[in-house]
């Protein structure tokens, strides 16, 4: 059975130790100045304390980044639900970067291709948890397969109230859940592919389909007519006959 890897975060447990950020940076060799995960800091309403909200790529069920990728390098793996990047297919056009409401993607300064959280794919291959999950001292991040009813994430999602952090205009159906409540909730931006990708989808595809389709139909029509009207003389034949008997208008030739 296909799995659906999910993270459930109890942001009330996070005290901003930044261990998850460092662990991710080291594990995935994320260059300085870039990041695959984050902790959002916001003041609490009721007290003078702070609230910390850990996060990373939400591995959305409606990933706008995937829709914006022209080569299929960015894709949602149907086997585990993780949004991944095929490095050898990514041409580094960066179309996916503004298409993510969460800013979860960056263009790697050396590889020149897009990089993002893959829930530590190479660690998971060896049976380990993602680095950020394993290192968290308060276990604020819970990771597992939502499709396995007995997994801790599936049980927690059933038993507790959770919220998701989404942009109101573009709900990409993120697959990270926050236990009870979290803050801030209004930070994701509207997911918008770059203009060339939008034009490709809205203008170029219908245009190319229309023009090639109509041309193809025209050619088929001519072919059909050619097969049916076999004996009809062509224009230039009659033309030549006309010329030979001298009724062609010579003014045609300047």
């Amino acid at each position, binding site marked *: 059975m296909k799995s659906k890897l999910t993270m459930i975060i109890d942001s009330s447990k996070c005290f901003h130790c930044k261990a998850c950020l460092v662990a991710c940076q080291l594990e995935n060799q994320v260059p300085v100045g870039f990041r695959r995960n984050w902790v959002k800091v916001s003041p609490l309403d009721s007290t003078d304390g702070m609230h910390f909200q850990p996060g990373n790529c939400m591995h959305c069920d409606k990933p706008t980044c995937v*829709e914006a*990728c022209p080569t299929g390098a960015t894709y949602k793996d149907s086997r585990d639900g993780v949004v991944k990047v095929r490095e050898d297919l990514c041409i580094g056009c960066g179309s996916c970067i503004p298409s993510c409401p969460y800013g979860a993607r960056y263009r790697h300064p050396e590889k020149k291709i897009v990089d993002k959280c893959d829930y530590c794919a190479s660690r998971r291959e060896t049976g380990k948890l993602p680095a950020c999950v394993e290192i968290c001292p308060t276990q604020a991040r819970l990771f597992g397969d939502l499709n396995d009813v007995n997994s801790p994430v599936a049980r927690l999602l059933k038993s507790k109230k959770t919220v998701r952090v989404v942009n109101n205009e573009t709900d990409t159906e993120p697959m990270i859940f926050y236990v009870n409540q979290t803050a801030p909730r209004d930070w994701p931006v509207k997911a918008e592919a770059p203009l060339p990708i939008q034009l490709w989808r809205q203008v*170029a595809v219908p245009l190319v389909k229309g023009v090639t389709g109509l041309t193809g139909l025209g050619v088929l029509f001519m072919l059909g007519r050619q097969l049916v009207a076999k004996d009809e003389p062509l224009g230039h034949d009659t033309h030549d006959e006309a010329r030979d008997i001298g009724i062609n208008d010579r003014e045609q030739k300047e």
Partner: protein
Amino acid sequence: MTENRKNKQVIRRHSAHAMIIHWFNTVCWGVLLVTGLGLVDNPVLQPLGMWWVRFVHSAFGGGAQLLRVHIVCGAIWSIGLLLYGIIFLKSATLVFIKEILTVSLKRDLRWLIKKPLTMTVGPKIMRRLGMTPEIPDQGFYNVGQKLFAIPALFGGMIIAVTGWIMTFSKQDLTGVDTVQWSILIHFITVGLVFAGLLIHIYMAAIAKGELPALISMFTGKVPADYAKHHHRFWFEEVTSQEPESDPSLR
């Protein structure tokens, strides 16, 4: 000279290098179209359908291999044509560009209206509509051929340049926004040139009476009466200059 002998005369129409570059271009375009369309692995951007993507991906052993084939073939194609254009600049390239950009507005418009009508509704209906089915005389290329040659040449240049921009995306020669626009322009230009290609293939290889044109792309020669019927101004130019000689030997 009897009429019969005259009809069997042939005229040199294409040089050997022109035929080679034509078929070189044909093979490259074929490979590039198949692989390029297969590279658009995204259902909202793919015009033909995802079945094509799956088919081409499996035929080429995966997307990465497919991309490599597309880039290598595109490089061979664009460099090959560029070299051809430079080597034969005076004898072919400039002559070709001048020929395809020279139009006679009134005559060519008439050709453009009448020729498709003879091919679709046919001469009978044209006569019934009060239109003579005779089409105006044309030169080395008819205006239909010119209207395909222009986008093929300039579209080809656009396709090559945008292709190189994408290829060098990881070298950061341009910004990512230039790369993104290049992908779009590459796609649209190929789509429009492909539409022209459909007509080119039909008119040059399938349409009735056009077999000599197809054969001439292998032999370089056309029958004199074909040249007279289809490209009268060129025929008259060639025959009036040196009626008995082969222009290729000049």
